[in-house]
């Protein structure tokens, strides 16, 4: 019996002192494709605001939007497209108008060295190629379908994943020959996958809106974070990560 109690006490102790004793906690819901950039921005924001703990919940934008619409306790929402933000807006949970902070476009992620010689969007129609992409319910899936339709080809994906990071994971694990992901996802991988340029993707670039949520627990902190993301520091992080800016959308 004793080891069990010890384990329990230790578990409680660990749980109790987990993320430190911050005075204020800002809860940010952000698209999966923002994982790297928003982690950096959250760290910078915390450094600027002592006593503030920024908790970022990354996931498929549509799922996050549904959760916020159902009353999830988010202070800020950053979505990978406007359709997901509209879900939150329609539920009446936005405190202000959403502002676009970045754009992103699709690319084809392949194994390093591109062994299957994928040269462009048209190659995705090849039967011998195992292609994965996002499900149509999420922003990267909406953009992918748009892109495929514009190219006038038929793609039979082996799997439709719930978010863009899952698509990337399937390519990285070697299970898929090609995956439609964002250019920023490939850049963040540091060489574990290669990208095939897709010029046509410029026409279906996603715009990333950010907004403060109505009845946020930390409304002023939420607005500060939104300004921070939209400001120069944010711009620099997004540019380094490979995002485009609204002015040069699609460039």
């Amino acid at each position, binding site marked *: 019996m004793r080891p069990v109690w010890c384990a329990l006490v230790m578990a409680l102790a660990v749980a109790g002192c987990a993320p430190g004793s911050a005075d204020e906690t800002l809860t940010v819901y952000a698209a999966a494709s923002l994982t790297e950039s928003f982690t950096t921005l959250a760290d910078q924001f915390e450094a600027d605001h002592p006593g503030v703990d920024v908790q970022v919940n990354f996931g*498929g934008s*549509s*799922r996050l939007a*549904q959760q916020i619409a159902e009353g999830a306790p988010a202070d800020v929402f950053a979505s990978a497209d406007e359709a997901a933000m509209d879900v939150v807006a329609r539920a009446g949970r936005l405190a202000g108008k959403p502002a676009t902070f970045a754009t992103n476009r699709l690319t084809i992620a392949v194994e390093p060295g591109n062994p299957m010689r994928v040269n462009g969007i048209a190659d995705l129609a090849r039967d011998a190629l*195992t292609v*994965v992409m996002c*499900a149509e*319910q*999420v922003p990267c899936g909406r953009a992918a379908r748009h892109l495929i339709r514009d190219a006038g080809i038929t793609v039979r*994906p*082996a*799997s*439709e*994943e*719930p978010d863009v990071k899952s698509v990337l994971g*399937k390519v990285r*694990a*070697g*299970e898929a020959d090609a995956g439609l992901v964002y250019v920023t996802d490939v850049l963040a991988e540091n060489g574990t996958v290669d990208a095939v340029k897709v010029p046509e993707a410029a026409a279906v670039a996603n715009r990333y809106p950010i907004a403060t949520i109505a009845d946020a627990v930390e409304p002023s902190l939420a607005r500060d974070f939104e300004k921070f993301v939209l400001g120069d520091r944010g711009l620099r992080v997004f540019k380094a990560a490979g995002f485009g800016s609204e002015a040069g959308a699609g460039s």
Partner: protein
Amino acid sequence: MSGGESPGKEKHARAVGARVPVALWIPATLALALVTLPVIGLLLRTDFARLPALLTSEASLHALRLSLLTAAISTVLCVLLGVPLAIVLARSRVRGVRVLRAVVLLPLVLPPVVGGLALLYLLGRTGFLGYLIDVTTGVRVPFTTAAVVIAQTFVAMPFLVVSVEGAVRAAGDDFESVAATLGARPWTVFTRVTCPLLLPALASGVVLSFARALGEFGATITFAGSLQGVTRTLPLEVYAQAEADVDSAVALSLLLIVIAIAVIVLARPRAVEGVRG
């Protein structure tokens, strides 16, 4: 499992059990609320007017058919492979069987998504077995309906093994010994004596494995992916729909609950018997 209790004895047991301390009622009520209230929440959220349309959409029908098919195949595999394993685990005197038993229970306690990753790194294109299969036969397991069945069998098998193994132990080997001394061959003893003894436990094991296979999500999406008609079973369809069309996700959830209740109704008498035994 011990159906041999006299009715009188049973009555006596009930009379004693009737005096439940009042203090237990409060947590018991809470526990019951925890189980039933979410279902009521789902029912309140259901759009009953659109229910038939939502359940008969192409995606829903595909998911339902795929789920029933894969869960049925997985259950058959669980029986074919799990019953012999249960008997070996219960009867074998070989050293190390105790360790084996712990290993067999692994999928029961492992998060399914971990099981899915493990399967992927065994049977995936870069996994050693997957690579071998790919090179020799040209078959790639991930992203196929077969991958769904493997994932479901992996997570559901322990339910059958535990159920049957317990019964084998409880039954002892007296009957088999007698049959053997009367000159029956091992296979005859197995089919004519062992199997009939195990039927109740086998039935409850089958129902539990089927239910587990039907509800499988984590291992499936990790190992098999998600594609309508091929690998997107009902739980995966619910997950996909919850992103966009909540009404549809709720309708499908309701369908899964109805199936679950049917499974419980089927299994209940056996389960109660199991608790008493």
